[in-house]
């Protein structure tokens, strides 16, 4: 495959990226690790000093911690579920012969271009708002009491907003995958007597598995750091009802300016994220081989 010269060149070519990313990861992470053992509150300079595991203790025993863990899972899982299932259905629909396919596609793809802050603001004010939101108007029109989404079902609402943003992404990848399915395979199945449903479950779905794993991987990376949507809509509340791990770290380090505590939280988040990462990488790694 390659000569020594090209291998040497390859090492040279890849090193800027590796070094930069290593620095990008190691330096802040190293500093974070250092801070996590310090008593360091931005608002109280001169109170520093080594505190041992205190920061970790307080972060892990924070009553919000387990809620945050659970909410993170709910958010990531919920969005993945909605986008993958919805994406498959949508991809199936867009794969049909329809009039104005191009325009439909343009409309469907649009949410992906919207800034998270903007989409959160729009959903919060124009849709979920129980007085002026569209849902409230609709409820009023059919004589129901307005439902206060962000207070009564904060996680669901946030999940919906985030899913709305990511649905186009999933749809696009899955649609491309669907269109790459060898039409002869479908015809073979048809000859074999498979009906539309059997063709979907036995042929299309397995074919989409690979694309779905990539969707899951990429989205998980981005979903784990979902932040703007929560900040804008619920501020993690009511109570801790919509606080995720990322948000909790934010609260620690930027609302309380407890850099030490935030750093400990950050380290814990990194560890948890990496557990997820390893799991995902296994999955995708296997798929990349094929």
């Amino acid at each position, binding site marked *: 495959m390659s000569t020594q010269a090209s*291998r040497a060149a390859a090492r040279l070519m890849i090193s800027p990226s590796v070094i930069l990313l290593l620095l990008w990861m190691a330096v802040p992470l190293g500093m974070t690790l250092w801070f996590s053992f310090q008593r360091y509150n*931005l608002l109280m300079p001169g109170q520093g000093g080594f505190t041992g595991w205190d920061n970790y203790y307080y972060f892990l025993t924070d009553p919000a911690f387990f809620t945050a863990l659970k909410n993170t899972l709910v958010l990531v899982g919920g969005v993945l579920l909605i986008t993958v299932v919805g994406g498959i259905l949508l991809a199936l629909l867009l794969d049909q012969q329809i009039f104005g396919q191009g325009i439909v*596609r343009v409309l469907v*793809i649009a949410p992906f271009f919207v800034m998270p802050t903007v989409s959160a603001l729009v959903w919060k004010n*124009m849709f979920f708002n129980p007085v002026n939101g569209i849902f409230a108007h609709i409820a009023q029109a059919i004589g129901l009491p307005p439902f206060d989404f962000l207070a009564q079902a904060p996680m669901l609402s946030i999940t919906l907003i985030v899913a709305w943003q990511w649905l186009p992404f999933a749809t696009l990848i899955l649609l491309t995958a669907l269109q790459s399915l060898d039409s002869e395979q479908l*015809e073979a199945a048809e000859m074999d007597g498979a009906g539309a449903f059997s063709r979907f479950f036995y042929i299309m779905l397995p074919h989409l598995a690979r694309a779905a794993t990539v969707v899951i991987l990429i989205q998980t990376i981005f979903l784990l750091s979902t*932040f703007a949507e929560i900040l804008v809509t619920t501020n993690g509340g009511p109570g801790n009802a919509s606080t995720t791990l990322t948000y909790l770290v934010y609260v620690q380090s930027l609302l309380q300016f407890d850099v030490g505590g935030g750093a400990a939280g950050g380290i814990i988040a990194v560890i948890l994220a990496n557990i997820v990462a390893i799991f995902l*990488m296994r999955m995708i790694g296997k798929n990349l081989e094929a």
Partner: protein
Amino acid sequence: MARKVSTRRKAIMTAIAWVIAFLIFFPILWTIILSFKSEGDAIKSPLQVLTSHWSFESYFVVQERSDYFRHFWNSVVISLGSTLIALVIAIPAAWAMAFVPGKRTKDVLMWMLSTKMMPAVGVLVPIYLMFRDWGLLDTRIGLVAVLCLMNLPIVIWMLYTYFKEIPNDILEAARMDGATLSSEILYVLTPMAVPGIASTLLLNVILAWNEAFWTLNLTAAKAAPLTAFIAAYSSPEGLFYAKLSAASTLAIAPILILGWFSQKQLVRGLTFGAVK
């Protein structure tokens, strides 16, 4: 493949697809509509909004309050700059991974990707301190650097999947033809991968454009992009739906238009090697 699809079926499918597409697009449409309304009209029930009168007033108000074009220009510079630099760094790396794969290649790729899982909020303070010391706070260069590093793994991955599709033969042919490594990459690989590079560029410009945490926290006035522009509207006083809509429309319009125009390119590229 081409068996007749009955017109009725096609019509039904079209109807369903259009309804769903409309629903998905509706929040954006609604924002745009409201941006042309007066504040009073903007909170009326949906049907009344359509019949009330239209104006550009909110846009003037928004422009007067915050200099849209400066923010816009910062966004352009930052997102394009970070992506271009990332491409320059990533192309050689992706070349190496795609054409001289070793036992570790896949692990390196996965490791790179995993750096994206580092929660930004957890490392803000260290980065902030470094930026302060290097005088990078509120500079475009600083943001370009951060966003470049943020997106580098994705850029490398995307390029890697494209490069892998390019037959090794062609690069070897170039080598036989006397091309040095740099001319091989410059004259053969890069032009061949133009579609892939273009969609990588697009996706990452979008990601950088929409990145709100670092851009907000590391800028003040001079380098503030549209994410900061929007932050001034996230809970203004009194009635603000029309102004918020106008600001939102302004913030997303450039990327939406770019995205729509380059839709095909983007779609083709968005597969991350998921589709063969």
